[in-house]
């Protein structure tokens, strides 16, 4: 059969960010997929070498426009290890609170994008309406809906009083009811199942070969979550379930993400119930002693890793960032093979890609 090359992107309605896909199709089936990255490469790793550790907080928060807080969290963990700083328990708890609010925001945003890409506009509207609640909470906490600038080296810059805690509790209760409805839709709605069940299935073997992480890996049965396996921030003081599935398809990934959203709501409640008293930050020196460090954290999309090397000055000698979308993109090239062209949007959305993160 004649092979046809279908270019998708770098600007395309299916993709919210620039990414160039080349799909080679025989009739309705995709037989090969290649991709080109780099359209939003900003040279952040190089820029970070020219800025001080404090200035880098603002730069690194902009690696991702969705999970901005987890980047500064990972960066601060690394620099705090180099400085041998102990962050006060209240600071760690507030840092964790933002991490979980961000996960809720990211997963709801993703559910809306998936729903829109498979033509299910109702779920898109509901998911994005509900996401507003969590954005409002974050805005009230930090002043910013997306870039929160909450982390500082040595802790956080925000604190909560009892009125704010009560207000967040009320908002979270409201959100909880709405997320339960979304869980119900994902579990039982035939339209959503028909477009996602058995689509874009990844085996555990495939996940391992491409070193994929996060909900995509957990959807295929890989039981790994850094919050539990290598607890950072305040996760060692909180209890939660690591959600896994076995199907590996887009439906399994959807179930993992909506159930993780419920777990995150519970984590936020635990934090508000048990917020220790005291300071939220300690002072940090501007100069960082010589050394190298690897810091990891579980972003909404999976493991984020930072390598930081200090030469003893007030700017890092090297910062390396790897975000979870990069291994997911590597894997999706295989998953796009031998599928129907109509399923491409679902498969691409299924990995929850963030091109800005991958490009840096």
């Amino acid at each position, binding site marked *: 059969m004649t092979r046809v090359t279908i270019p998708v992107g770098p600007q395309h309605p299916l993709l919210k960010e620039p990414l160039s896909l080349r799909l080679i199709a025989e009739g309705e089936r995709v037989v090969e997929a290649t991709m080109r*990255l*780099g359209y939003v*490469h900003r*040279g952040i*790793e*190089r820029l970070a070498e020219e800025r001080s550790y404090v200035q880098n907080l603002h730069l690194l928060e902009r690696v991702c426009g969705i999970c901005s807080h987890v980047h500064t969290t990972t960066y601060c*963990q*690394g620099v705090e*290890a*180099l400085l041998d700083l102990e962050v006060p328990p209240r600071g760690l708890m507030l840092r964790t609170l933002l991490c979980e609010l961000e996960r809720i925001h990211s997963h709801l945003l993703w559910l809306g994008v998936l729903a829109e890409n498979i033509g299910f506009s109702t779920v898109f509207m509901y998911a994005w309406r509900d996401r507003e609640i969590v954005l409002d909470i974050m805005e009230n906490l930090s002043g910013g809906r997306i870039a929160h600038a909450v982390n500082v080296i040595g802790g956080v810059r925000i604190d909560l009083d009892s009125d704010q805690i009560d207000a967040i509790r009320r908002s979270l209760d409201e959100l909880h009811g709405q997320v339960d409805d979304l869980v119900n839709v994902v579990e039982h709605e035939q339209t959503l199942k028909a477009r996602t069940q058995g689509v874009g299935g990844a085996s555990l073997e495939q996940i*391992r*070969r*491409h*070193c*994929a*992480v996060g909900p995509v890996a957990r959807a295929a049965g890989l039981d*790994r979550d850094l919050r539990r*396996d*290598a607890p950072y921030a305040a996760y060692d003081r909180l209890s939660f379930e690591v959600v896994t599935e076995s199907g590996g398809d887009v439906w399994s990934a959807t179930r993992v993400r909506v159930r993780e959203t419920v777990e995150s709501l519970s984590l936020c409640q635990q934090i508000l119930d048990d917020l220790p008293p005291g300071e939220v930050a300690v002072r940090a020196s501007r100069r960082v002693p010589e*050394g*190298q*460090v*690897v*810091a*990891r954290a579980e972003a909404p999309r999976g*493991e984020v*890793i930072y*390598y930081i*090397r200090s030469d003893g000055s007030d700017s890092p*000698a*090297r910062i*390396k960032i*790897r975000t979870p979308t*990069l*291994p997911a*993109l*590597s*894997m999706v090239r295989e998953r796009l093979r031998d599928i129907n062209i109509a399923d491409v949007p679902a498969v691409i959305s299924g990995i929850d890609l963030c091109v800005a993160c991958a*490009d*840096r």
Partner: protein
Amino acid sequence: MIEIEAVLEAFRATCPDHSFDASTMLTDETVIEIPAACLKEVVNVLLDTFSVYHLSTITGQDRGADLELLYHFWHGRGITLQVKVPREDARVSTLTGAIPGVDFYEREVGEMLGVTFEAHPGPEHLLLPEDWESGPPLLKEQPDEKGEA
């Protein structure tokens, strides 16, 4: 969780000319220096004998006369393989055969630092434009004969 001493023993058995030693970074990350010639064999030992499947990424950095590659593996704890290659002839064998997911990481290190990954199936640019001509952007400027950068 695997024993680092057992890993070192297995590495020594695979590559007898080199005495492998482990050090630790601040965040409990083990670092083992590996000669570039042994990299492929050593990674196969990690995968086959110790089931360490997850390679988080490769960090490449300019350390003056050498370029340093750090392969960050994860097995419930971090384990980093450190490989040094001479700046003037920076080449190391690809791991794409054993770990297909390493493709993007190797291409990025290749374009950013000018490292050649031998036998890589598609060593084109990952992030930089195809017509990029300014040289590898993460290399530090070398001092000239007068000692000025």
